[in-house]
């Protein structure tokens, strides 16, 4: 099972951000609009050799089962990881003064629950499913809003 984002289906309703913030204490997912009408969501790719892990002075970032994970208790809010990330996916949470990014709801998955963003998404733009299911969809070739090169991409442990 993997988490997928389908830009073709996203209506930018904000439900995922709310559900994420509700369960995780802060928003770890972010939907942005490109050209004010094309939703995109960039997320951690869980690099093989993560620069963020290397740069963290307090060893707050670690990799467990392929998932890069920020430990809130150890994070001192120095923003080094924010600068180091080549994809710019780490956000700085001003109010709580810590770095924050999606860790694929590692805790939830261990309990065999689906991530809240996938559960709440009204259109199924965020999906937690088997790869075969996604391949089926892509085979049908229903890319209607292709102008931004929208394609379904997976958020999976590296």
């Amino acid at each position: 099972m993997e988490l997928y984002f389908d830009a073709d289906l996203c209506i930018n309703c904000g439900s995922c951000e709310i559900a994420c913030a509700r369960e995780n204490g802060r928003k770890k997912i972010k939907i942005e609009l490109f050209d004010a009408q094309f939703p995109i969501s960039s997320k951690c790719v869980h690099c093989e050799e993560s620069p963020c892990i290397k740069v963290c002075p307090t060893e707050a970032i670690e990799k467990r089962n392929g998932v890069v994970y920020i430990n809130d208790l150890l994070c001192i809010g120095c923003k080094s990881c924010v600068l180091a990330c080549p994809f710019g996916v780490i956000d700085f949470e001003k109010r709580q003064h810590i770095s924050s990014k999606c860790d694929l709801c590692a805790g939830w998955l261990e309990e065999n629950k689906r991530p809240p963003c996938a559960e709440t998404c009204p259109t199924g733009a965020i999906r937690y499913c088997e790869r075969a299911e996604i391949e089926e969809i892509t085979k049908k070739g229903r890319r209607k809003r292709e102008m931004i090169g929208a394609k379904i991409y997976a958020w999976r442990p590296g």
Partner: protein
Amino acid sequence: MKIKSICNHCALNCGFYLSKDREIKGIDYWTDHPFNEGALCDKGNLAYRTIHHEKRLTSPLIKREGKFKEATWEEVIEVIVRKLSEIKREYGANAIRILTSGTCTNEELYLIKKFASLLGTPNVFSARPSMISNLKESFGFKAATNKLTDIKNSDCIFILGNPFEQNPVVSKYILRAKYENNANIIVADARYTPTAWFATSFLQYKVGAEAALLCALIKSIIDRDLFDHNFIEKNTSDFNAVKKSIEERSVERLSKITGLNHSSIEGAAMMIATAKRPAIIYTTTIMQLPNLSDVVKSLANLSLLINITKEGAGFYPIQGEANIQGIHDLGIEGRQTTRSTKEAVKALLIFGDTVASIEKPKASFVVLSQTFLSKTSDIADIVLPSACFAEKDGSITSTDRMIQKIEKAVDPPGHARSEFWIIKRIAEAMGHDLDYDDVKAVWNEIRANIPVYRDITYKKIEEEVGVHWPYKNDGDQLYKKKFKTKDGLGRFQHFAYQPRIPKTDKAHPFLAITERRYFNREYELISNMIENITEKPTFYADINTKDAENSGIKDGDIIKLISAKDEVTVPAFTTDFVPHGIIFVPNYKLCTVSIREV
């Protein structure tokens, strides 16, 4: 512990579970709910936060010397009874007016109606105007023809409004139709909305030209002879009269009013008319219009013309308040205010957290039942603390006629009570007996009195999730055999298509338009949480880039909108999606405004 619950922030009535220890701790997704399949929008995700909110009212309030003071139930009920009896004696029962809102359950609404008839007043209304009352004459029922889930089978969907932002969860089925069924999506709106992102054909009309656009669509279907003559002849009436009334209007001239190219209107008309399973959807956006009823009538005419009784075709009004369909089913009409009613009202009872803005009638006595103190409370003499959706039992009917049970998960805070209890107590104190032990007894009486609910026993509501009325007759699609009007014929209704919008002038050079994104005042308790999380304001103004440039406003500036009646301060965003001369403000009203930088 997991308790089933229904979101009461809009008329889709999505289901979810409340998880409870001693208090409600959070929610779980109800993944096998027949409508939402677990999905919730931003409002639904946070709905549970209102239950233990610190702003909840916990005791009745009474206004003394301009300030609210806490009181006991005995005191306030004594005052209410005394005032009502006085007013009834002096001015007659007609001077008492009762307004209801969609947060009340069917059972509560029934009790309210019964209480009114015991008082002798016929003035029971819904607090907001109705967007479906004109359907009765056209079709027979004031309701959607199908389940909302049937939208996914359509092959052409005409959408007037912006359901993706107003009632987000319904987008599930619209996009399924688009991607799995290759449906054409035609979106009509005055501005470019997220719904329009997905449109095959987007009709951006001039504000106020809704009826003209629909008239043009109807006209071009008639001109091109794309309708089923047999159906029109056998199953409808007054077609020729309506046809004649728009005879001289050419599509070209009508399209001038809408500001659209006539070929794009004709293209859309062809798509709708040739579809096998067309769906017509409209949302509460049109409720701001002064010519609301004309728009609804023309929508009904269009759907008669393309034969909405076809297998799989559908007509879906997506309404606002949670139980607004229940209000209509129980025979409560939408509010109309005329000057004479305003003056005649001496007592106003308002039940439920309505979002309508209500003016205090002169020299009157106003009682309000609410879950928390809001802007509306200012007009009240007495505020009664009411129970929210998780604190009472009963049933509610969603916009597609689905009846669901809501369950009491926790006790109301402090002295707050459900409307059921409140009405019973007031009636008892006035010497009328509303002798019902529980909601079941009321439901049985509703069944006996309201024909569409007849076959739906309380047990069915409890056991089957998502029962749709009428239970058996027509299955799930209404009017399969014939319409439910008196003569069994669908009726074409005359409508005026001329735009009726406020004229801008020098003092107020812009036209503010709006659409409602929340339908329950409890939203005000969670809106700042939503703003904090998404980092986007929920109340803002979208201004055309050129207009902003001319008035020296930059993206993100805070501005003041000044209308003839009031002023509001909002952050302004510049965009090309709003046409020239228009300012879009969600949850506001249709009016002319001037702007000033703060």
